[in-house]
């Protein structure tokens, strides 16, 4: 009796797991399978659930027509730049806020906390005007600076909570040994490396996936990121090239699939730790 009840419970449990997995994986399967179908099969009525023919034609068109390589490079440069700027300046500032008190440091700290609740939409118009005046429209730097709006406060907030956990004794020992304060800071940085990793992976995710600011600031292939470029394909005349769009979506998401396990771990960690 107890055994059958347990068996039924187990079955229901795995049934629920399967259902959850299916609802996540099916849309992703549909995206991927569309990208490797011949264009004629993509637009067949009724739609073909299974892949009957395999082709790379959509991927060829993606590189020839979009041009995807440019956009992918732009995305890489912008995310790399935003990370480099945000992590270096952000962790320095976090260290300063964690270790020293000075005029306005309290205000700056509360600004960092509050800043994360200000809706991004409040920046749309002023950032557009500011970057027009500074000739930053359609440049990598323009998007990098816009991404600093969320990358910098997040890094400062996360890294400060990591530095707060590190005992000052290590740096004091370094100072006694005759290190400069700057060198002593790097002692603490070394210890806060896991924090820097967490900040890196989460800001990578935010900057890589960001769409709204990139949409406002970029104009041409000189700076357009992948999200802007593939969404732009929706405006193509006659027929929306779903093969090209899904192919671009899949390639753009590959790094996320690769890092998925770590991202998932860090999201929860940073959330529970910081608050």
């Amino acid at each position, binding site marked *: 009796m107890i055994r059958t009840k347990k068996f039924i419970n187990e079955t229901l449990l795995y049934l629920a797991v399967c259902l959850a997995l299916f609802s996540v994986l099916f849309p992703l399967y549909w995206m991927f399978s569309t990208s490797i179908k011949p264009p004629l099969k993509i637009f067949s009525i009724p739609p073909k659930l299974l892949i009957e023919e395999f082709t790379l034609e959509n991927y060829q068109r993606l590189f020839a027509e979009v041009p995807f390589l440019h956009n992918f490079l732009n995305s890489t440069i912008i995310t790399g730049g935003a990370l480099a700027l945000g992590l270096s300046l952000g962790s*320095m500032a976090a260290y300063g806020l964690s270790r020293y008190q000075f005029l306005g440091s309290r205000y700056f700290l509360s600004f960092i906390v509050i*800043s994360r609740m200000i809706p*991004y939409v409040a*920046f749309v118009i002023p950032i557009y005007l500011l970057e027009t005046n500074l000739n930053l429209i359609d440049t990598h730097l323009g998007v990098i600076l816009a991404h600093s709006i969320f990358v910098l406060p997040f890094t400062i907030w996360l890294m400060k909570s990591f530095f707060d956990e590190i005992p000052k004794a290590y740096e004091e020992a370094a100072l006694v040994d005759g290190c400069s304060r700057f060198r002593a800071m790097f002692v603490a940085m070394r210890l806060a490396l896991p924090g820097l990793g967490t900040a890196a992976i989460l800001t990578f995710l935010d900057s890589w996936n960001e769409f709204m600011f990139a*949409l*406002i600031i970029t104009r041409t292939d000189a700076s357009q990121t992948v999200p802007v470029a593939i969404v732009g394909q929706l405006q193509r005349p006659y027929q929306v090239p779903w093969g090209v769009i899904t192919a671009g979506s899949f390639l753009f998401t590959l790094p996320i699939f690769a890092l998925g396990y770590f991202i*998932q771990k860090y999201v*929860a*960690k940073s959330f*529970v730790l910081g608050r």
Partner: protein
Amino acid sequence: MRTSYGLHLKKEAMFGILLVMPAFIILAIVYLYPLAYDIYLSFSRWNLAPPSPIEFIGLENYVDLFSDATFQKVLYNSLFFTGVSVPCEFFLGLALALLINKNIKGKNVITTILALPMMIAPVVAALTWRWLYAYDYGILNFLLNRLFGIEPLLWMSDINIAMYSVIIADVWITAPFMMLILYAGLQMIPTERYEAAKVDGASSWQMFRYVTLPSLKGVLLVALMVRTIDAFTKLFDVVYVITGGGPAYATEVLPTYAYKVGLAFFRLGAGAAISIITLLIAAVMIVAILRGSRGR
């Protein structure tokens, strides 16, 4: 030591300022100045099409907006979206968190797969859903018809359905976030509490009600607050891609409308006012949630 403390502190403070300064300068340029300018703009009239000089008009933008039927509709849409999507993703997220908290095989792989929707770009998720929602080439209409005999739906262009399509896509994206946060919360509950409840002869529902829920309260509250604010203030990509705010403003929400009014219709002052209204309502929400949680 004591005598030189004052001087020492000053020097130390200088080093601290030196470290914070670069980040502060960047934030002053890209954050503080734009935010202040947005507030200023919201009190001004400045149209670029046709071009007109900027002029200070006080609260006129705000008064105009609240008497404008389109804006009222957009505000209602944002509230409706928040009110429906947040509870949906919350209960779904809680169910998923309880699921992966059980002893299941391949837990790491399953958790990672279930977390995918929140990790992939919202734009990619939205494009995927737009393609699923397609009327005649769409797989969703096909499957619903074959499995349940449901007639094909105009997911994105029926005025009564479009908002639900946006909500479904958004819940798909955000429920995994809830799942991860609540799962992290579940894992922090000490097992002794469950053991103690078991000794007292508690049923599994009682354990959930009197052990799990109270222990989760803190995490729950923050997760709910973050998601409520995000749903109200940050819904942009999904609407932009799936419906573009249509049909007839049926899915237009505050962020997309602020963008549209400001940078597509080039009414910069009115666009700024919409964003400031969004900010103020979000602030009221935060205070209300915090007050409400303290009251209990």
